[in-house]
């Protein structure tokens, strides 16, 4: 199905199942421990062996020699794979660094060997007997020292630099100016389930049970890496214990399970040990961001400039921190630049809302600083500079843009009018209390997505697509879509996901999964409805599908009859025309946060959070809310504690476990409110939905930072905002 004209009324608009707060249909399997995660396919490949990865002890250099003698002689060892004996391996097109290093080492904890043994414990013990002799080389690990040598590099969805009018002149002429630099640190996905895979070979055919967000990407890249045809690779990944972008690409667990299984002649399981998770895999890169804003005295932005620097391994990519600045606020003269430095740290890559998440951390503090300079309320300043068209290409309007309504609704619900604009004025016992606001913005991406739908003679509708559910609720919204389209209750729908034997979907990433994958299911269901109508002798344009019946005029036939004694199947793909070129499709929101700053210790604790979101049709308010509160929690982590600390002498992330890399715990997160504006976006897809999962993080950290300023009067521009950055600037105790 080609989607190239705005959606009109369609069966989804009935909202009998879609739009309802349906419980997760995969919930019982997860709560009873019967959902099979990658490491838990106990029946699929009996008697597997276990692989344990050895990570490089240096960040850059070469392996002189590896001594495997002691490890090979250890109890239970079946095979040891290194770059020396692995055979020829390509680098995956989605990987920047090789998944199996040697003799050259590209980053700390890059895999240099996998030891395969009868038991996990034997593999782990033997892995510690692998002796690697390294020749360490000097590397570059400090982004701040490399800003001058950084090169322009394009970002996702746009060029490196953009320019409209004469920014420099307009900024110089502006009566009110801000010129500030902000930094965000490297961050880890730190998902609960580590990267894990089980591999089994049947002749030249490889089956990989893995934990991966993008099935088709990974089939192609695993095949490329192993230099085998992609038809020989089957990937199975129906349950994923968190991804956040860290499982978009094949990682060492998958490749080394495949190589280990080939070497051992047995199925092999590999899970990354937690201490390897932070340097062996990808991470969100640190940024340095300079923002300049010029405005007239009445608060109209006349000039806005955003420059961003980040680093990655050679051949890598930058963080797209300037993306939202191209679209969020009006202003005639504007510029953005993106510069990429070469670093020898582990590979930088996507993490939840790559680009906007970091960009909004800086931009939305800058707007707060401007509001203070102008003496204008920060909610009003944002409203004053709203734009209904793409400010770089004014001929393009937004498909939907209700930022103002998000801000106004949030301000009212949060009690914003009671706020003291002057910082440091509100005290509650030992706490200095403040509130902060930030806009939320994340683009909506369209990507084709296919599904197959089958109807059997008992009236069960089965959906098959290689879409993944990374904890987001894909199973449930896909079931709701099929139930709505075929006119059956949701318990008559079976959803099967995450298998490369199924039609290729959008996959999970960039908050594109929900809208695109359900639109693919919609397309397949339209086809199935036509087949059903034809089979039962209805005119498909007139047939109504409801209550398990197909009806037209006075005639009503059970849907199941269309399957006869067998089944009726249909497959289709949603493909997009140029609506996304004609209209800018983005999602909008507003975050409101109240924090307390301890008057003595400067400990910061969030007290209240509210998000208002306008993101097209909300397919399931329960799973959507769950996505948004999870993202808000991650935003609190980014604001207050998350930082991969670099040892700049040796080039690695030092705090590489969950004790050292702190993410929020329950005690850090207060009551969270989420409001969804009632919206449909006919430009996005027949579902009229857009992404929601990443909108929830964009802006949160800045709202926290602004609340800290309002509470304490201390402006911190370097994340995370830890107590040591405030302590010296708080008043005396007592």
């Amino acid at each position: 199905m080609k989607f190239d004209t705005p959606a009109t009324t369609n069966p989804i608009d009935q909202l009998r199942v879609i739009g309802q707060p349906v419980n997760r249909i995969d919930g019982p399997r997860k709560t009873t421990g019967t959902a099979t995660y990658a490491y838990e396919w106990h029946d699929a490949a009996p008697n597997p062996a276990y692989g344990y990865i050895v990570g490089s002890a240096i960040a850059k250099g070469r392996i002189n020699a590896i001594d495997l003698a002691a490890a090979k002689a250890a109890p239970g060892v079946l095979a040891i794979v290194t770059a020396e004996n692995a055979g020829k391996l390509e680098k995956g097109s989605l990987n920047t660094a090789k998944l199996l290093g040697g003799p050259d080492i590209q980053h700390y904890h890059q895999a240099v060997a996998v030891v395969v043994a009868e038991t996990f414990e034997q593999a782990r013990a033997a892995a510690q007997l692998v002796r690697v002799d390294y020749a360490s080389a000097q590397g570059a690990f400090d982004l701040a020292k490399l800003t001058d040598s950084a090169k322009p590099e394009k970002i996702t969805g746009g060029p490196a630099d953009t320019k409209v009018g004469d920014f420099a002149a307009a900024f110089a002429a502006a009566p009110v100016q801000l010129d500030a630099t902000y930094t965000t640190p490297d961050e880890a996905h730190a998902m609960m389930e580590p990267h894990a895979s089980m591999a089994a070979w049947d002749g030249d055919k490889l089956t990989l049970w893995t934990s991966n967000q993008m099935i088709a990407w990974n089939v192609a890249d695993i095949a490329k890496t192993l230099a085998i045809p992609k038809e020989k690779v089957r990937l199975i990944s129906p349950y994923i214990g968190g991804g956040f972008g860290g499982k978009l690409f094949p990682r060492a667990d998958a490749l080394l399970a495949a190589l280990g299984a080939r070497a051992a002649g047995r199925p092999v399981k590999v899970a990354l040990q937690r201490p390897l998770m932070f340097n062996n895999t990808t991470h969100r890169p640190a940024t340095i961001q300079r923002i300049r804003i010029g405005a007239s005295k009445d608060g109209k932005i006349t000039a806005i400039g955003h420059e961003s620097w980040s680093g990655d391994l050679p051949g890598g990519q930058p963080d797209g921190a300037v993306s939202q600045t191209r679209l969020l606020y009006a202003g005639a003269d504007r510029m953005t630049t993106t510069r990429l430095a070469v670093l020898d740290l582990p590979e930088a890559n996507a993490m939840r809302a790559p680009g906007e998440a970091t960009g909004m951390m800086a931009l939305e503090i800058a707007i707060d600083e401007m509001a203070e300079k102008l003496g204008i309320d920060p909610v009003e300043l944002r409203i004053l500079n709203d734009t209904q068209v793409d400010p770089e290409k004014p001929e393009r309007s937004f498909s939907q843009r209700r930022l103002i309504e998000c801000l106004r609704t949030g301000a009212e619900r949060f009690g914003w009018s009671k706020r003291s604009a002057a910082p440091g004025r509100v005290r509650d016992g030992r706490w200095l209390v403040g509130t902060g606001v930030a806009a939320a913005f994340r683009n909506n991406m369209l990507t084709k997505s296919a599904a197959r739908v089958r109807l059997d003679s008992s009236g069960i509708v089965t959906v098959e697509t290689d879409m993944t559910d990374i904890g987001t609720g894909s199973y449930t919204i896909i079931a709701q879509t099929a139930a709505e389209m075929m006119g059956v209750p949701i318990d008559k729908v079976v959803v099967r996901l995450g298998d490369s034997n199924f039609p290729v979907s959008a996959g999970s990433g960039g908050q594109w999964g929900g809208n695109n994958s359900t639109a693919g299911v919609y397309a397949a269901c339209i086809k199935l409805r036509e087949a059903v109508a034809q089979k039962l002798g209805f005119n498909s344009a007139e047939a109504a599908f409801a209550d398990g019946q197909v009806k037209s005029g006075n005639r009503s036939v059970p849907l199941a009859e269309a399957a006869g004694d067998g089944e009726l199947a249909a497959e289709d793909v949603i493909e997009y025309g140029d609506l996304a070129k004609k209209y800018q499709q983005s999602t909008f929101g507003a975050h409101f946060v109240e924090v307390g700053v301890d008057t003595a210790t400067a400990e910061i604790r969030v007290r209240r959070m509210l998000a208002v979101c306008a993101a097209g049709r909300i397919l399931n308010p329960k799973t959507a809310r769950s996505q948004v509160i999870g993202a808000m929690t991650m935003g609190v982590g980014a604001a207050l504690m998350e930082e991969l600390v670099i040892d700049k002498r040796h080039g690695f992330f030092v705090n590489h476990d969950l004790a050292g890399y702190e993410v929020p715990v329950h005690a850090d997160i207060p009551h969270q409110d989420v409001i969804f504006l009632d919206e449909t976006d006919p430009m996005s897809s027949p579902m009229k939905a857009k992404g929601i999962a990443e909108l929830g993080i964009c802006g949160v950290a800045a709202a926290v930072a602004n609340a800290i300023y309002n509470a304490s009067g201390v402006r911190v521009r370097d994340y995370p905002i830890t107590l040591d950055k405030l302590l010296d600037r708080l008043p005396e105790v007592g």
Partner: protein
Amino acid sequence: MKSFTYERANSPAEAAAAAARTPRAKFIAGGTNLLDLMKLEIETPSHLIDVNRLALDKIEPTSEGGLRLGALVRNTELATDERVRRDYGLLSRALLAGASGQLRNKATTAGNLLQRTRCPYFYDTNQPCNKRQPGSGCSAIGGFSRQHAVIGASEACIATHPSDMAVAMCALDAVVETVRPDGATRNIPIAEFHRLPGDTPEIETTLASGELITAVTLPKPVGGKQIYRKVRDRASYAFALVSVAAIVQRDGSGRVALGGVAHKPWRVEAAEADLPRGAKAVTAKLLADARPTRENAFKLTLAERTLAAVLTEARG
């Protein structure tokens, strides 16, 4: 994990004798720290002596009017004991500020005292660490040192001791009771139990080889306001940046111990005389010889400000 042999001890003296008999033997109780370290091969005992069946899990009154806390009393049980809560609130509060419910259910009194540092370089076996591998060097010096010691450290090691419980025990003048392999027992005042790193940071306590902790005794209750204030970036499940254990009497006198600043709970009795003069005066003496790194110098300000808040609360 390296292979090891295992035995279950039947009496404290027997356990101590077994430890003396076998080189590189370790006692195991809750195992909440030791097992993690063994998996990473940071600890590589050749022999484990399981002391869990020893009858050391009681909290009993002493003839001096204090309490004897068995070495195997779990942290949860200790924190919730009615007598502890009533007479030694400081200890209960410190325990509940540490770890998580699950860990406290398993961790023991003696094990808590013997837990190892959480220095990230200690945990990364690719990196030099004098505590893990004597003579290899200290990676934290000149490296990531935000969490590390500001006082009492050495050129060999700037690690901190992570326990909250021990800080409270230090302020309470607790005494560690032990038995040695020859069956002899002794009492070690808590202040003398943990060592400063010096040139031998791998030696963390004054226990002799094979010596087994059997109990910790608390002297007769001293009353006063007992406050344990733990400061950290996140609200729970994190080690202290700085913690303050304070006992403040009605007349303004009292005791103070700090956590998160040194290789052991930090208490200087001479500084306590200045309590009536306020936090600045006390911390000036308490941390007079501090030598922080650039990254952890904030701990000096933080300790003073936290103590000031604690004193305000105590007097309020």
